[in-house]
């Protein structure tokens, strides 16, 4: 009986040690996630070494080395962005063409939209886009949208492979630097830039070009809605034949692509123009009925407050 009690005690102690080890491991994982900005709390609070969490990326080095700040596996990727750059800025794209010429495309300073298609010659998903670009009429892009394909530079791509996929007349820039400038996570990736503001108005991944054309269409509609809402606070087009503002869009607008405080100020401007001031009850809904009021007469609820 005594032996049994001793054995049970030992087993309980061992299990206790196991549970304590698991809790310790769990705590280490949570701490690491928190340092990466994925944990609970304020992700903008300084991390190890005073580096804000959103500026720190995990780099899985082969040697498993420590970062500059001494934190295991944490290093800052690349130099900090210059002060004039942010996540919506759109620098010019410069590089070489697959034939060895040099090409620079200015995406700002004019009233066109530029669609940057970041593709590679090797990815299977990109093949459908190269094929779609063979016939400009099949792209479905509006006439005022300029399509520019950006691959990585000749040091990371085979120019002959890119040349074989690009139809004559298609603007193709080979520039690894542009991939860094636009923080491209992989191919295919698309960025839409408004030339008037020089800002990115849309970006994302797609598997078919129809999805990209839809992204462009939405961005243009958003731009028009914002412009109209700012002008008269209604959010509606002036054209009775085009109440949603889908036709004749020119891509000019004042707020799309803004970032940070400027975006907040632009939103405040739209709300104020619509008569919604700080403290307005509509800003503090208490039920779904406050957000989605019962349907009234036809057209009574259209076009208000959707432009921000």
């Amino acid at each position, binding site marked *: 009986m005594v032996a049994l009690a001793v054995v049970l005690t030992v087993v309980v102690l061992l299990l206790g040690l196991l549970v304590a080890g698991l809790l310790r491991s769990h705590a280490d994982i949570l701490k690491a996630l928190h340092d990466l900005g994925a944990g609970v709390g304020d992700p903008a609070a300084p991390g190890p070494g005073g580096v804000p969490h959103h500026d720190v990326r995990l780099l899985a080095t082969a040697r498993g080395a420590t970062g500059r700040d001494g934190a295991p596996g944490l290093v800052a990727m690349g130099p900090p962005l210059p002060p004039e750059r942010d996540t919506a800025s759109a620098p010019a794209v410069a590089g070489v063409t697959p034939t060895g010429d040099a*090409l620079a495309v*200015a995406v700002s300073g004019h009233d066109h939209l530029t669609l940057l298609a970041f593709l590679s010659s090797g990815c299977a998903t990109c093949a459908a886009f190269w094929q779609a670009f063979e016939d400009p009429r099949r792209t479905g892009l509006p006439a005022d949208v300029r399509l520019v394909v950006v691959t990585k530079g000749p040091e990371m791509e085979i120019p002959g492979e890119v040349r074989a996929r690009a139809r004559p007349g298609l603007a193709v820039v080979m520039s690894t630097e542009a991939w860094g400038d636009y923080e491209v996570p992989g191919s295919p990736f698309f960025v839409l830039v408004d030339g008037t503001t020089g800002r990115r108005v849309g970006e994302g991944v797609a598997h078919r070009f129809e999805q990209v054309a839809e992204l462009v269409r939405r961005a243009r509609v958003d731009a028009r809605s914002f412009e109209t809402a700012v002008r008269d606070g209604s959010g509606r087009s002036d054209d009775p034949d085009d109440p949603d503002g889908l036709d004749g869009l020119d891509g000019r607008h004042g707020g799309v692509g803004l970032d940070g405080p400027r975006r907040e100020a632009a939103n405040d401007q739209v709300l104020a123009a619509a008569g919604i001031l700080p403290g307005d009850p509509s800003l503090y809904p208490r039920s779904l009925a406050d957000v989605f009021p019962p349907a009234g007469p036809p057209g009574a609820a259209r076009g208000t407050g959707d432009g921000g």
Partner: protein
Amino acid sequence: MPVLRAHGIEASLPHGMEGRIFVRPTVGAETPYPVAHFATFPLPDDTGDFGGGAVNLMGVDDLFVVLFEYGPESAGTRLFARRGMPRTLRASDFKPYLLRRGLGGQAGTQWFFTEAGRPFTLYAVLGSHARRHALVPRVNALLAGLAVSPAPVPVEQGAAPWN
């Protein structure tokens, strides 16, 4: 500031300018030489050597500049006697009647010269003659960032490169 570099021509582009440095495909027995286009507006893919198809798209605040190289047989001729590319143009250098294609309101200038042993012509168009005093400094900013290096020595075909 984007930098273009090809065919022995280098250009540091001022903000808002785009450009291309290219050699057209050989047709028949002709030998094409490098051409550089610079503009403040989106350049069409099929722009002619001296701006055909592009200058008609210019706004009043736009610029279009061409650097066009001629064959080496032109070097040393009187037309290309000027040494070095003009780097500082004056507003008075631009005339409406110097345009290759006379479009109302525009003004142009053209210079022939030899730089790094290579014969070139520089052709620049302003979107508005009336605004030349404001636009010419932008042309000069572009010219300040242009550099030409000597033409590469052609490799003789047929000989093994290690001999």
